[in-house]
């Protein structure tokens, strides 16, 4: 695609990736994506803000050239060094001998690891400025949204925020501007859930930093450029990044898989114990609900009790999907516990608590395990276990 003029002296020079369906291995991208880069031309200097993915280096340079001869580029600003925006850095620098790479302090280490050579980057701090002549780039440190080196670049005169991944989406539409395309809220929300959600606290800090900035246009590195209803998008981030509400009643969430109903019976006995101790205990069968749909519930609960029978020496697949999907939420110091019925080996619950400890759950007790069919005494033990878990919250 050709370059697009955003305002005088400011061009979009990105790449449309219409074919992409899975991003970073972990993410669906049913609408494809874009890798947005921007040229900002002052009267004295030219800056390129972010590059592109390695495999699109050639396409990227083709789009870039009519907007700026690479030899004219004085600064190559990397708002963050993730390879989908820095992979083409080497190719760009090869034809832009005068370009100085501009990164945040953590970015210096990352750019070295991307290029495997020292390009002597210019390190900028929060509130540093670079003058291009009639156009001033101000850098706003915004760590961990979502990479440690993340910063935003704010073009003061034109009130444009180059926001990196922040407020972006995997959504490919050649019309580029949010007011020219159909509603893409769903892609915008999904992007937040997968990319930004693990860093809610940092999202709130970043929002606070841009709150008082006059912003006319937001230029993210993926998806549409925001120039209409900007506050609607910022408000969505504000809502999604808010602290989860604390309920007055303690609550332990029970999720299980059960082959023959034995682990299930244990789960309901533990729930009885939890309720007798005055806490709530919602119980879900993980063959009936999707683990990813449980994340909000997990986030607001005081703890998680996961049950699995053991098949071939392992917990069941649904359990591993659950435990791997929790990386996107903050479970640190939540109470973790496990249980399960087994035929002869019973490793499942032990593996669950090990993984929970890795996720930084607080695991106060060994799991409760029962050989095959729980006796009345076993179920009493489960109830007692539930009560003790409430005490340990």
């Amino acid at each position, binding site marked *: 695609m050709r370059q697009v003029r955003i305002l005088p002296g400011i061009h979009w020079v990105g790449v449309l990736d219409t074919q992409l369906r899975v991003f970073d291995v972990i993410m669906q991208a049913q609408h494809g994506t874009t890798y947005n880069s921007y040229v900002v031309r002052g009267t004295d200097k030219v800056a390129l803000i972010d590059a592109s993915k390695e495999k699109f280096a050639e396409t990227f340079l083709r789009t870039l050239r009519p907007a700026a001869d690479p030899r004219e580029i004085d600064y190559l600003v990397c708002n963050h060094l993730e390879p989908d925006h820095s992979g083409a850095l080497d190719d760009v620098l090869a034809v832009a001998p005068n370009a100085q790479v501009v990164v945040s*302090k*953590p970015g*210096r*280490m990352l750019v070295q690891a991307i290029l495997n050579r020292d390009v002597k980057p210019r390190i900028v701090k929060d509130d540093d400025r670079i003058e291009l002549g009639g156009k001033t780039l101000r850098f706003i440190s915004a*760590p*961990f949204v979502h990479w*440690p*080196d993340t910063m935003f670049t704010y073009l003061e005169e034109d009130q444009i925020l180059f926001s990196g991944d922040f407020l972006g989406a995997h959504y490919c539409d050649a019309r580029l501007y949010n007011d020219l395309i159909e509603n893409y809220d769903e892609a915008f929300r999904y992007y937040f859930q997968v990319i930004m959600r693990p860093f809610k606290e940092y999202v709130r800090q970043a929002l606070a930093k841009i709150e008082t900035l006059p912003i006319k246009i937001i230029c993210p590195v993926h998806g549409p450029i925001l120039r209409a209803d900007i506050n609607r998008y910022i408000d969505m981030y504000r809502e999604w990044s808010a602290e989860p509400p604390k309920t007055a009643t303690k609550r332990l969430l029970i999720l299980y898989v059960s082959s023959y109903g034995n682990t299930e019976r244990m789960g309901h006995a533990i729930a009885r114990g939890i309720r007798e101790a005055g806490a709530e205990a919602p119980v879900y069968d993980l063959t009936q609900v999707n683990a990813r749909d449980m994340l909000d519930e997990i986030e607001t609960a005081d703890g998680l009790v996961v049950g699995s029978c053991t098949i071939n020496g392992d917990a069941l697949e649904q359990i591993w999907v659950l435990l791997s999907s929790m990386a996107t939420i903050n479970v640190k110091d939540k109470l973790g516990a496990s249980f399960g019925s087994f035929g002869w080996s019973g490793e499942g619950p032990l593996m669950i608590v090990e993984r929970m400890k890795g996720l930084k759950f607080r695991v106060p007790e060994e799991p409760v395990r029962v050989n095959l069919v729980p006796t009345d005494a076993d179920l009493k033990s489960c109830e007692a276990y539930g009560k003790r878990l409430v005490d340990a919250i």
Partner: protein
Amino acid sequence: MQKFECGMCEYTYDPAKGDPARGIPPGTSFESLPDSWKCPKCGAGKNMFVEA
């Protein structure tokens, strides 16, 4: 003893303080931290630290 700073976030490891929350007693030099030790703030590995 030399302090070390995480290259990814602002955490500084101070040998005089150690990292008691992770079982590292005061007086432990950065070099003698176990390889499994990670930045308490952001999780970066030891190799991401530089002299402060």
